[in-house]
């Protein structure tokens, strides 16, 4: 049980050692985001998968014509997974449209010694934007 707790941390540590220089610590900034809205959902790895799925289903059943899912980096897989799940759940009544892109991420380098100034570096991370839209509204046959 205790090994479970310490394992992911160790992995983080090895990641941390990749920092550019020993004199700096890497601090992350919030990535640039697309415009927010009621029907825009940002998929994270921390949030419960079931909860996110339910939120999406709720939006669609309550009359939203389309929802947009954004996934960044490690959350891409989860984002795709979610979209596929929704497609099967709403069997045939909704379609998906997938776009991929690259997002520029900015890291700050905070100096650890007195004779250095702040710095910054730009990383790139892949992102996915999935638009899920209804093709036929259930219970609204005009």
């Amino acid at each position, binding site marked *: 049980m205790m090994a479970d707790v310490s394992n992911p941390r160790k992995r983080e540590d090895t990641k941390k050692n990749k920092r550019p220089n020993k004199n700096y610590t890497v601090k*992350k900034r919030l990535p640039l985001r697309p415009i*927010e809205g009621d029907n825009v959902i940002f998929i994270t790895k921390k949030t419960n998968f079931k909860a996110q799925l339910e939120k999406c289903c709720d939006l669609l059943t309550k009359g939203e014509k389309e929802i947009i899912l954004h996934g960044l980096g490690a959350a891409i897989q989860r984002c795709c997974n979610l979209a596929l799940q929704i497609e099967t759940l709403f069997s045939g009544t909704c379609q998906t449209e997938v776009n991929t892109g690259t997002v520029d991420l900015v890291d700050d380098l905070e100096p650890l010694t007195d004779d250095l*100034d702040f710095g910054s570096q730009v990383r790139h991370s892949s992102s996915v934007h999935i638009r899920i839209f209804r093709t036929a509204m259930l219970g609204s046959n005009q």
Partner: protein
Amino acid sequence: MEPAEFDATLGGKEHLPYSVNSLKFATARSVEIAAMTESILYPSKTKLIFQCLPVHMRRRVMSHNAKRLPRKLREGHLEQLKKSGLPPKQKRPTRRYRRRPENMLLEYNRRKQRNVWLETHIWHAKRFHMIERWGHRIAYAPCDKAFRACYRATSAHCLIQDISYYTPVSITGPENYIKEMFSSISSCCCGLSICAKAYIDGKREGFIHLYNKNSYPLGYIGKASFIWVNSKMEKSLWLFIHPSQIKQVESLLSDLLDTISPSECFEIPAKKKKIINKLAENIQIKVLPGAYNRFRLIGPKSHAVLTKSLKCIETIDQINHNKWISTIDKRSLYLKEKHCYWQNINNVMSPSQLPPRILVSLIVRDPRLSRPSKRTKAVNTSSVENVQHLIDLPPFLSISPIWDNKIHQILKNERLSNTEFIKHVTKTRLIPGELNINDPALQSIPVVLIQRPGSQNSNKKKIGYGCGWDIIVPSGYGLIFWHTFIMFGARSGGLRETENLAFEMGECYLPPDSKSGIEEEKLKSTELRERYFRLPPSKRINYRKLAVITPFTCPWNILLKDWSNKTSNEFFILRDRKLLSVIQDCMQEKKQLPEIDSSDICLVPIYLKMVKKGNIKQNAIICLPHEKDFLTLPNEPYCEDPNEKIRKEKRKAHLCELKSVKRRNKKSKVKNGTKVLSIKNKNSEPSEYMKQMRELWLPTNIETCRNSCSREVMGFLCQAAFSFSESCGCGVGYLAYNALDTLLKKNINQVLVRNVSSRYYRLANINVIKDQ
């Protein structure tokens, strides 16, 4: 002809003298004069003032109603009444009278004398619970109980706090002297020093831990933020200091500058003496309370609120008529460049997308011009495309005229008050109420924005939690800016939100090794203790039965003594960055801790997170787990309270005594016919009996706490609650260094936590707090 009046002219014998001898005249009347002066000086009247009035001025029930007396006699009359013991019954002036602006102002000025009021005080006093703290009257929490709403504002919207109580201190002088000065009161181990290259150019705000002179690691004072201001003539350093520490810092700084007394002079080598003298000559320290207003905006939407309310001036022509412009160099304003930069970062979604802790100084229009007519939520409509705008940090950005003392008074004098503004807008405009953006009547205002990065580590907290802006506004303009921010949808918070944010961020709020922290802890513990003893005995938790000896305080000294077997009055919290990260690595890998000096008096700050469910509260106990505790979580066994019997007997005896006293009183009452005054005073000290009983409930003289319960006590939690950002119980606390060492020697990196009111131990993960 004179009419004949006197004796001789009428044929009498008496002749009038031709001249009057004044001396003779006076001596003839000396007795009368003496009597008169004496009666004036020492009036032997036994009558009261209203009784001395002539009959035609007397009125019915004059003594009762002072208003019937002539006004000039009223004061004396009231004095007389007071002397005679009768409390003068004065009617409270009517509300209508009290609410007249001039009377209201008088009353406010009277109340201001006791505590400092912030500029937004009256706005806050209408909506907040106000408390007295650190010589100020500070808003504590909003009356609408918006605890969760305030959290939501910090994480998703915008929370605004007035933190103008932070006192600015300006230190002017050559850089090397200031460095010399701060080398003795801060340590390089705690982070970057005050003259680090990252801060010296004034582009960013820095933080520094202040200690008493040459006493590191003991004698901690507090954390202060600082800004370097580079003007053409000289460099100056601005410290913003928490009001609980300002007195300590002030005396510390003046001590550093003071030339030493002549008796000490002989022992100090000439070189050092020279330095000290030079310090005093070259460095000027000014404490300027109330010189600036400082508002803290927290949350991702705080940027949208600022961009909506602050509109930059584009060209110098627009503000040439402002009086304060004439006192400064116009080329140092960089109006166009700053306007351009502010436009570029206009669409940023959250302040945490910008470089950390940067200073952005702007010259803005009067915010009343950009105020919406209804309260609206400020939101961003488009996003930034170019990443380069977020990285660039132009050199002119931090240059601001706000630090110049000369313009403060001009700004304040030229300010249009709200009434004047409304009058101006409604009376003088062609269309009443129409706003002209380039109105010459309203002057432009220099402001400084300071970015706060919030969480920068995704392993600890979600990135950007707690990010925001601090805005520094010249005095006099506080309420004007405040109103505009509120109208753009910022939610206001008080001191409770400051505490809560520190807890959510996992920061130490007023650490217990500083004077301010000790005072804060004392305040809280007395409050809890008073509350506990106000409960009826049947509703009081018997902490002895739960094996908790200090439910309301954290006895750090006793804890450290138990873990080291050495008595010491002082202790300190570890702030050495390198050491803290080494300890964190040791905890992850379950390695042994490194040997450090003075580990006996050292506390390690930790952030604690529950493994499973369980809500922890303040002062919870952190315990050392046994090997088998990981299989089944332990409970504290039932504990006997030895004092229970004694308390019962004592209470019985006390009741008997009360009864007999009552009987005696009754008898004497019958005999004398007078009532014996009961000695009951709510505000006075508790009686001897009460004190003894309290001692039996909670003994105060504790000698050891390590083995007070079935698991060994390692430390305590200062702040603990359910954390909304982590969605589980979390806490900030301190462990004894030796206790942590013992834990890791056992090859364990988890601890047990127990609430003071509970018997159940729960498992928790701990992490070292690195950035304090």
